[in-house]
């Protein structure tokens, strides 16, 4: 970094500048924002003049001198500009591909590359919103001579998704603190952590009777080849001998053929509610319904793929996410990637606006005609329930899988829990299967709920 570049960023106006030199590969991009008055020393002149006035009127030289010292402080507050933070920043992450829950150590090093000392420098690192800092604040306050550097470390806990660090915020002040300037600094190499959880296969997931023409494991109501008894019918020429009901032949002398249930594969789309309202949790730092839904969808994805069904993934939310139903190893890897890192199901909401009718039109256009939908939603608003009914009414049989994120502390929380139960009840009475789980694992809840269902 040359001296000229360092000087250029101390310009009064906001400057955006990528400083690149051939001898040094690291380029740190800095955006110096406008300087602002902090107004800390605002009253000092008034106090000084008042002291001088009182001193003159009462003929006390001590007060006049005291006022003069006050004027000295006013001068001290008046001189100088808040310098732009001319820092070279490097950020090192100890593990780029951690497992969920791993602790990742982040080391930040900032060197004052300018030729002015930074008397008051506060650094706040741009930790990705989805990562929680578990050890040490990602911040430091210091003072740096030209060429001096400061290093600090902190630990974040990895969570599912792809997390990219944002710009480091540097706040510089004049020595008196009367003016301050914020500078956003992007290190040369953006730090990034990709955390892709292994998908554990959940238990057997019961699907509804909507199947494709492909052979699979879903028993249908159509007779043919299979393993489970379906019906008997009159013998027709050409029926295979092993399907003739010989007991009946021995008893009555008639020839009859046994029909077995045909087994077919289903096409399933896992629909995850990722609207802003679904980022709800029972307690402030708890697991959100989106996290629970994505975890359960991962288990369902593996289980269904292993069972030979075709599985796709979609998200109900402002960010578009669609993985067309498919099968095979490559599809499994793609699904894992989507569930882990797709921005639509990121650990924090995107903040964009969600247009329900537009989303539904697009979803219906993409959905194969024979697809059924597993809808992972916390059911915290009426919109999700009515959407489930609408998709079901369009012939795509819907199973609602609802993580319970309601609490029972205050009256309002109890009301929300009651409303959610009512929505579940209405869905069930409308003929839509619903599973809810809370605390216990998803496969256990599914096994418990399945016992009640008719095949």
């Amino acid at each position, binding site marked *: 970094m040359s001296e000229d570049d360092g000087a250029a960023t101390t310009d009064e106006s906001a400057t955006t500048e990528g400083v690149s030199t051939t001898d040094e590969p690291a380029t740190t991009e800095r955006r110096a924002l406008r300087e602002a008055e902090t107004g800390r020393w605002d009253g000092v002149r008034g106090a000084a*003049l008042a*002291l001088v006035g009182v001193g003159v009127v009462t003929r006390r030289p001590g007060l006049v001198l005291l006022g003069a010292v006050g004027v000295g*402080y006013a001068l001290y507050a008046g001189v100088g500009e808040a310098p732009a933070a001319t820092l070279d920043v490097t950020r090192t992450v100890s593990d780029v591909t951690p497992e969920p829950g791993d602790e990742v150590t982040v080391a930040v090093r900032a060197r004052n590359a300018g030729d002015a000392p930074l008397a*008051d420098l506060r650094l706040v690192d741009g930790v990705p919103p989805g990562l929680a800092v578990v050890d040490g*604040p990602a911040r430091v*306050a210091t003072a740096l001579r030209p060429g001096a550097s400061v290093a600090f470390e902190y630990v974040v806990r990895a969570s599912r998704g792809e997390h990219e660090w944002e710009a480091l*915020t540097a*706040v510089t002040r004049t020595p008196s603190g009367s003016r301050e300037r914020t500078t956003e600094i992007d290190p040369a190499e953006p730090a990034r952590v990709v955390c892709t959880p292994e998908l554990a296969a959940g238990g057997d997931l019961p699907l509804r009777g909507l199947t494709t023409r492909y052979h699979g494991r879903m028993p249908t109501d159509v007779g043919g080849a299979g393993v489970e008894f379906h019906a008997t019918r009159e013998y027709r020429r050409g029926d295979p001998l092993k399907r003739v009901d010989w007991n009946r032949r021995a008893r009555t002398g008639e020839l009859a053929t046994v029909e077995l249930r045909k087994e077919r594969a289903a096409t399933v789309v896992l629909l995850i509610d990722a609207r802003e309202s679904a980022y709800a949790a029972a307690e402030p730092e708890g697991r959100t319904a989106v996290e629970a839904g994505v975890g359960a969808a991962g288990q369902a994805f593996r289980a269904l793929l292993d069972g030979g069904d075709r599985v796709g993934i979609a998200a109900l939310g402002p960010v578009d996410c669609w993985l067309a139903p498919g099968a095979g190893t490559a599809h499994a890897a793609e699904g894992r990637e989507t569930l882990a890192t797709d921005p639509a199901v990121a650990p924090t909401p995107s903040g964009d606006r969600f247009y329900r009718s537009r989303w539904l039109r697009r979803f219906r256009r993409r959905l194969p005609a024979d697809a059924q939908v597993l809808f992972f939603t916390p059911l915290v608003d009426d919109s999700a329930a009515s959407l489930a009914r609408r998709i079901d009414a369009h012939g795509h049989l819907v199973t609602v899988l609802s993580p319970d994120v309601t609490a029972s502390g205050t009256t309002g929380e109890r009301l929300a829990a009651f409303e959610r139960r009512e929505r579940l009840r209405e869905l069930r009475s409308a003929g839509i299967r619903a599973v809810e789980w809370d605390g216990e694992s998803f496969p256990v809840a599914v096994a418990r709920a399945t016992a009640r269902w008719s095949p």
Partner: protein
Amino acid sequence: MVAVSSEAPPADGDEARGEGPVGDASTDPVDRPERDARPPALAVVLSLVAAGVASLAALLAAPLGGVLLGGATVALAAGSLRRSHRLLSWAAGIGVVGLAVAGYRGGGVEALLVGGVALALAWDVADHGLSVGEQVGRGARTRRNVAVHAGATLLAGALSVGVVYGVYRAAAGSRPVAALALLLFGAVVLASALR
């Protein structure tokens, strides 16, 4: 010195669920568990020590002024505890009144000047500690920052006292107070021109 700082702390990046920037610490009930927004201990201790020195100096000048500065010390401690810039400004205001009373009661010039610088340092370090606490927090490394800031303020005060007291001794030792004030007026005009 009656001023309420209006700085906006930078947005919190390490928030698990984005709540936006943390506002004034005293009005922000939801603080993140891993960040302690209290002012750094060093700042609080330095501020109280300086306030103690100011009280002692004022007590030597005139007992009533010492009492008022004792009140200012308590207010400074309360301001650091409650994280309120307004309370700190009030403390500084009480301190200035205390010094004025001590001066009116005929306190010594030297004691008044020491008290003035110590009061400025006490208020400045406490207020600086609040802003560092809001933006960085007590858990982070802040010693160097606070020490440099306190040192700079002390140096500025010492320089002012040196110049003022030197001029007083050399030129205005026996002259009327009005001459001193006129001298000061010239200094203020000069300062305004510089600004």
